[in-house]
């Protein structure tokens, strides 16, 4: 595929794709404060505590997503103008991510409600940021439509088979060294097509690409099991969340800084100053209590340990109603359990974490992510031209995989006692013997 001359204004090197060509406009966008900030936000939050090379950032992921978006536009025969818009949307799609990526979503939900998504901030920045607006010019409203409308172009950026996922799976695999994340990207792109229904085109894969598609879904599952759901990463992420909670209580971080609804311009100004480094620095300099201790512990890899673990399956939690009760624990139940365990251990609740893990369901995103967003099906076009849902036909199913695991994390010296307290509280035996 020959890149159009307008996308040859600048080239940026990428370890996955070689050279990524950019237009003048895209280059201007790349050099805005909002985009440059992404080079200070790690793609995989605290995964580096397990995989030391996992320090790649949202910045290069955004470039990679733009590159794949262009490949898909080419395959689908998009016209020049639409291609331009989709490329830009791909470049900007993560501009609303907070420090440590998805980990920041949790404190934002405390303040802004359970429906909060970083996409809300992405849309707000595209809509309101002056620098971004200048670079976008008359394309601003078209780019926003990608994030608000339900079209083929928006499917390219956000669906069950979008360029965002395709890039991050390969990129995360590359940087962690975990080979399971590799899938047949070229085959998938080559077999992509459109399926036209009344008034709308849908993203679809030709039947010949079905096996490549299954490898993609398995890759997602494997990466979740090996990387995204690694317990040490979960512990470090949760410790960070506790640090933010303490920082809000101490006052070195103000609730108003996380609140979108009040003064949106002030919110964006403040938000664009927040990245992995600045938030750690704020807490280290501003906190005199637990928030600072937790950040220091994360930085020095003095992480809490697993004291208790139980998969919520029939094998480990035989009592059906008990299993349901545990699976249904909400934030209040979890905080209450943390307080109880901490009280019996004689330590601050900031050092006890009860975590109800959501394991990747092979077909989709994690359980929690599915609950938050609209899921779009992947269509497969058969040899006879008839469409079907991959979901309905895939040999990959959810059975026999524990969807939920319950963990308790605490300081090393309290592990044994914490396990006993948790077993008593939850009325199930831990699979860890400590």
């Amino acid at each position, binding site marked *: 595929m020959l890149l159009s001359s307008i996308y040859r204004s600048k080239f940026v090197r990428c370890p996955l794709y070689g050279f990524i060509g950019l237009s003048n406009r895209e280059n201007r966008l790349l050099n805005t404060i909002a985009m440059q900030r992404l080079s200070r936000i790690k793609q995989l939050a605290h995964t580096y505590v397990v995989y030391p090379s996992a320090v790649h950032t949202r910045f290069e992921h955004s470039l990679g997503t733009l590159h794949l978006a262009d490949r898909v536009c080419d395959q689908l025969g998009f016209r020049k103008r639409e291609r331009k818009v989709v490329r830009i949307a791909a470049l900007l799609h993560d501009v609303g991510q907070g420090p440590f990526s998805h980990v920041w979503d949790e404190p934002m939900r405390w303040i802004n409600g359970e429906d909060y998504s970083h996409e809300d901030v992405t849309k707000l920045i595209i809509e309101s940021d002056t620098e971004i607006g200048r670079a976008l010019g008359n394309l601003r409203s078209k780019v926003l439509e990608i994030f608000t409308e339900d079209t083929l172009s928006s499917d390219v950026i956000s669906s069950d088979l979008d360029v965002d996922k395709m890039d991050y799976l390969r990129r995360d695999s590359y940087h962690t060294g975990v080979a399971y994340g590799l899938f047949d990207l070229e085959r998938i792109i080559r077999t992509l097509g459109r399926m036209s229904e009344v008034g709308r085109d849908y993203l679809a894969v030709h039947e010949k690409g079905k096996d490549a598609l299954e490898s993609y879904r398995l890759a997602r599952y494997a990466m979740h099991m090996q990387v995204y759901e690694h317990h040490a990463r979960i512990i470090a992420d949760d410790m960070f969340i506790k640090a933010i909670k303490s920082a809000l209580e101490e006052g070195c971080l103000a609730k108003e800084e996380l609140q979108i609804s009040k003064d949106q311009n002030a919110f964006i100004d403040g938000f664009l100053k927040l990245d992995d480094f600045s938030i750690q620095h704020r807490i280290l300099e501003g906190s005199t209590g637990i928030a600072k201790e937790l950040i220091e512990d994360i930085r020095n890899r003095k992480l809490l340990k697993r004291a208790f673990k139980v998969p*919520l*399956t029939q094998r480990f939690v035989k009592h059906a*109603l008990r299993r349901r009760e545990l699976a249904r624990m909400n934030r209040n139940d979890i905080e209450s359990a943390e307080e109880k365990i901490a009280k019996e251990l004689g330590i601050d609740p900031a050092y006890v974490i009860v975590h109800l893990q959501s394991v990747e369901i092979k077909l989709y995103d994690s359980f929690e992510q599915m609950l938050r967003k*609209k899921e779009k099906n992947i269509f497969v076009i058969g040899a006879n031209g008839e469409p079907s849902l991959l979901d*309905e036909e895939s040999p990959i199913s959810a*059975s026999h995989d524990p969807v*939920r695991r319950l963990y308790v994390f605490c300081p090393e010296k309290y592990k044994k006692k914490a396990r006993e307290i948790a077993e008593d509280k939850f009325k199930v035996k831990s699979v860890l013997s400590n």
Partner: protein
Amino acid sequence: MEIPDILVAILSAEPEGIDSRTAIQKLGYFVSVELQKDAGYKADFYGPFSSLVAAHLQALVGLDFIVEKKRQTIHDRIMYSYALTEDGEELAQNVEEEYPTECPIIKEVTTKCGKIAHYNFRVLSWAAKVHFVLAQTRRAMTDKEAMEASRLFNWNLSKRQIESGARLLSALGLIKTR
């Protein structure tokens, strides 16, 4: 009543199990209409679809309350079926005690869909689409008007499909026909 409870109650009404995720989606839709519960249904290719229902169905499989089986059809396609496990049946009894008003309604909706449509996902989809169109446009329609209106949701319903869907909806008491 939460979505997992609804799913358990649906499957409790059909001890033989129900084929196809799409069928369960549509049963969930009809139940959510009857119970006036927002279960997150939005227009999708095969009709109203809820990612909440999809997520909870898979979660219940992972929690060993529902068993998911697959088989090859005569057209060499894979078909999934869902049924309650023993633990799922115990849970269903608990749900019945907790929701004595709702569960009989769910049972009635499910068994009617079984008797009339044999849980055929296509028929259930047509019915769900027709209902969705009527609910969103909020007015009575002829078949022709419904065909036109379905295009607003990117659906291409034929007269036959609308008639089939309307028959089921009428039996469920979800629409009136003249």
